């Protein structure tokens, strides 16, 4: 009887089987990395804004306190984005004719608000509250990173639920003294020791922090 397949066909078949396996695994891997990549999360990707506002300049350069613009960060779910008036309190004196500030002046003139691109955007079914995080000793930098080093603002974390859980499962790793909330460069010499102490002192109900109802309603 004649052979149906040549000697080579074996190696071809086995190779292709192997290939199939590799491709599936690789596919899964690619998908996974895609999800965690800045492409999907916009992590570390600066967003264009109507006005190229620089936190670096205002915070690092001028040393303006966060709360000067984000007024409601301590008492509301929403940190607050400065009104046009807030911008103009200074920019009616300095840089009053700078072309890049034209949109701001126009907004004040016409009363049409500026439309910024949202950098930190939690999904609609997540109810994040700035006030409680601030009052429980979570600093700006913990989530927003080194804003004082950002010419254009970017997201410093992917904001995936897993990321939120890192802190909600072990707040002592991130909590800081209330006095240091707005200090972007604060570092504990021994975070865990201090953390445990502050968690107790600020009455952080660690057993509740992973309840679904903490963030979802």
């Amino acid at each position, binding site marked *: 009887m004649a052979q149906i397949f040549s000697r080579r066909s074996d190696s071809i078949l086995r190779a292709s089987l192997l290939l199939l396996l590799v491709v599936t695994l690789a596919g899964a891997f690619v998908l996974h990395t895609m999800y965690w990549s800045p492409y*999907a999360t916009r992590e570390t990707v600066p967003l264009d804004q109507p006005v190229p506002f620089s936190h670096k300049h205002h915070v690092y350069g001028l040393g303006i306190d966060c709360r000067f613009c984000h007024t409601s960060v301590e008492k509301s779910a929403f940190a*607050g984005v400065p009104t046009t008036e807030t911008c103009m309190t200074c920019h009616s004196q300095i840089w009053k004719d700078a072309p890049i500030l034209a949109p701001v002046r126009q907004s004040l003139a016409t009363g049409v608000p500026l439309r910024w*691109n*949202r950098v930190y955007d939690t999904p609609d079914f997540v109810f994040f509250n700035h006030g409680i995080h601030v009052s429980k000793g979570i600093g700006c930098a913990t989530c927003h990173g080194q804003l004082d080093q950002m010419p254009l603002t970017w997201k410093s974390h992917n904001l995936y639920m897993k990321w939120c859980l890192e802190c909600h499962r072990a707040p002592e790793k991130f909590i800081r003294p209330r006095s240091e909330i707005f200090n972007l460069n604060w570092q504990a010499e021994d975070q865990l020791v201090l953390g445990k102490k502050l968690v107790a002192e600020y009455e952080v109900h660690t057993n509740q922090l992973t309840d679904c*109802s903490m963030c979802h309603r």
Partner: protein
Amino acid sequence: MIWRSLDELAAVPAFQSARHNEFPPGATEPPVNRRDFLKLMAASMALASLPACTRQPIEKIVPYVKQPEELVPGNPLFYATAMTLGGFASGLMIESHEGHPTKIEGNPGHPSSLGATNVLQQAALLDLYDPDRSQTVLNHGQPSTWESFATAFQAQMQSVQANHGRGVHILTETISSPTLRSQLQTLLGKYPEARWHQYEPVNRDNAFAGARLAFGEAVEMHCHFDRAKVILSLDSDFLYGHPDNLRHALAFADGRRAQSGRADMNRLYVVESSASVTGSNADHRLPLNATGIARFAYELATRLGLMAAGSPSELTPETRKWIYALADDLLQNEGTSLVIAGENQPPDVHVLAHNINDFLGNIGHTVTFTEPVINPASQIESLRDLIAALHAGSVETLLILGGNPTFTAPADFDFPAGLLKAKSCIHLSTEVNETSALCEWHIPQNHFLESWSDGRAFDGTVSIVQPLILPLYAGKSAHEVLDVVTLGRSDYDIVHDFWSQKMAGLDFEKNWRQALHDGYFANTRLPEKRVSLRTFQITPVAQKTGSLEITFSPDPNIHDGRFANNAWLQELPQPVTKLTWDNAALLSPGFAAKEGLANGDIVDLELNGRRLSLPVWITPGQPDDSIALHFGGGRSHVGRVGKNAGFNTYTLRTSDSLYIGRDVRMQKTGGHYPLVTTQTQHAIDSEERQIFREGTFADFKADPEFAKKSSETPIETLFKPEEFKTDGYRWGMAIDLTACIGCNACILACQSENNIPVVGKDQVSKGRIMHWIRVDTYFRGTPENPDMNHQPVPCMQCENAPCELVCPVGATVHDKEGLNLQVYNRCVGTRYCSNNCPYKVRRFNFFQYADYHDTTLKPLWNPNVTVRSRGVMEKCTYCIQRISMARIGSEEQGHKIQDGQLKTACQQVCPARAIVFGDIGDPKSAVSKLKANNLNFSMLGELNTRPRTTYLAKLRNPNPQLTT
């Protein structure tokens, strides 16, 4: 919900609503097109956005240009205002997020709210955002402008200046607003020949007429149920239909509610011609046709000895027994009894009620009198004059401020024809309705949340109506329309000026600001008035035996028809019948059986030569020879919600039979109409199925433990049951079934608070209503006259929740505070949880019910609650958004949440305060106290679900003479 996009609406002159027939009333399924498809897909992806293969789109963030003072972005603000209905103002407290109102609450300080609202006030919020609202000035149906109207109107008034305004007629609804009345006075002063008419279909003519006969002057009667031990209602729905219903409900409930060491309990007798909310709370209820009630009052008076027995009594033995027992009971409670007659009863009955109260020495104790806060002149006569003028063709200008007389006027007046005879007609109204269609000018009226005004509460307290939001459309208020011919001020100036003059003084601005803050001017209630009876002579009409009667009463949900386009109210199950989206002819089971009628069979009714066909609904407790009709349904010129909803019974209602029509002929047509209801009424099929537990006050005193008699013993388990102990709060709820009057307010409060969608008649008929809390009504006893039991059923928050065990993705789990959570964004929609829920309190989004398209409705949504998308389960979680906000707030200030500081929506709205919520871990909390009460029981506790929501068994207080 059920509207399509706004732009499409704007494209169509709203009054040509014919074009809105495109899809059936309340259909949840908008015509399919690609755009909707994508939106639907987007919607269903929305919740799964991150895990599913979609990259989050970039959102915009838009700050204020100039931030309003005292507004903290993200935090709600509360403003006091008031809503007037039938002239009477009730105080409200409105929650507002970034400048748009999202929730209506009662104003705790306001005498006729006391912190609660009824369904109409709750639903008013939806009217504000109703996309079908009137939006532009119309001239002969063509879009026009306010300015062109103003000039035209001024010109007209100029022309009649010469003859002192002869031919000028102003038709208003019932007015208590001091400002508006003074404006009218000024106008009438300027045009002495002009005439002011006042009419609305739900009025107090009979009450005032009765008062005139009894006391020689029209006075307002105020009931103090908290002081009453024995209460008799002669066809009065004082817990639901009365202008002061909220105050009544609380006072009545206070006289009954479960309290440790309660010595006695009030007793309610109700004689009524159709099953009402009040009747369903009676300890003794006697169904009589409306005519018979007059007879009954007469016989009672005779029995009490007020007057010599006249014509030989024609009572059945039962009724006689009833009267005798009642009379004895009344006589034993002189000074602490109360008799009240209903609006739909003729003046004679009111006279009898007053006399009995006087005879029993109740006047000054359980009932007091004041001057009326509204104009007591007979409204029907006032309208009759107008009609005469209209038909005589002597009306130059008819100014209609609100209302819809074309629809609501008695049929024999033939108002539309008359209206067309008027030279010129101006109509101010929030919607383009039947009347606007016939008027030269239509002016869009501001919703009360958009305008400045004032009004007086039932007790006279002056309440300020202040706007929560700038007018959404080119609307005006009645004040501004009247002011056109004088000064042309804004409604703020008008109201402010009026009061600054009236209360002239140094610190007016301070009082004014205080009034705005409180919602009313303190100490402005009317002083009590002493009244003296006049002799009276009454011979009750003897009803021809065997003749059939119709009673007319306002629709319990859409009132006189003005709320017909309010989807919340249309879909709200009507008390007792549980009908939604329609009204029907309510008949007794016995009568239906005799006539061979089933629910939905269409009958022909003939009254004084006028005919109407409508379906019947068999209603337990309805008198055999009386058919109850609700008016308000069947609007023709109305938005898409009210289209084809209900039947217009005004067509039978004539000026001589406004409430009671006698000698009715009924014919079965053989046709059928699908009526939909949310509860197929079963009596409980077994006494062991102790879902609803009740007993008499006597039983209770004999055996305080009687409610506990059932197998609530914990059941053996394979595991040692895990106590997820927590040092924090443990939320729980107790519902007092004795206090609950079944007014449905909790259903709407929940709907408004939790962004619960409306699904439409079709979906309701399929059993897909979305209400998170429902009010079950169980009937016990004979269908002719059963006991009615109301049971509000929210999620029980079981500690061993059967729903949680079977969820494959952990979308429903417990949190440490004991809430049975529903995580919408995790839910995949297997619906297994609902199958396994013994209370069936879970609701499923079978379609995309929440409307993501309609921009006008978005501001309605509570920003703290997820808007659910298609395919996810949803349910009550004790208003978890409120719990979270309260917890966060308290922790920011570093203290615990105080008991009573945190209220669920259903608890806050409840007029009877039957629902109590709080921390069951704290033994001093109100809820713990109630749960410690002997009456406390768990619904289906034998299933070992360990519900956090428990009930207090219902107590009745029957008269031993009648029970034996």
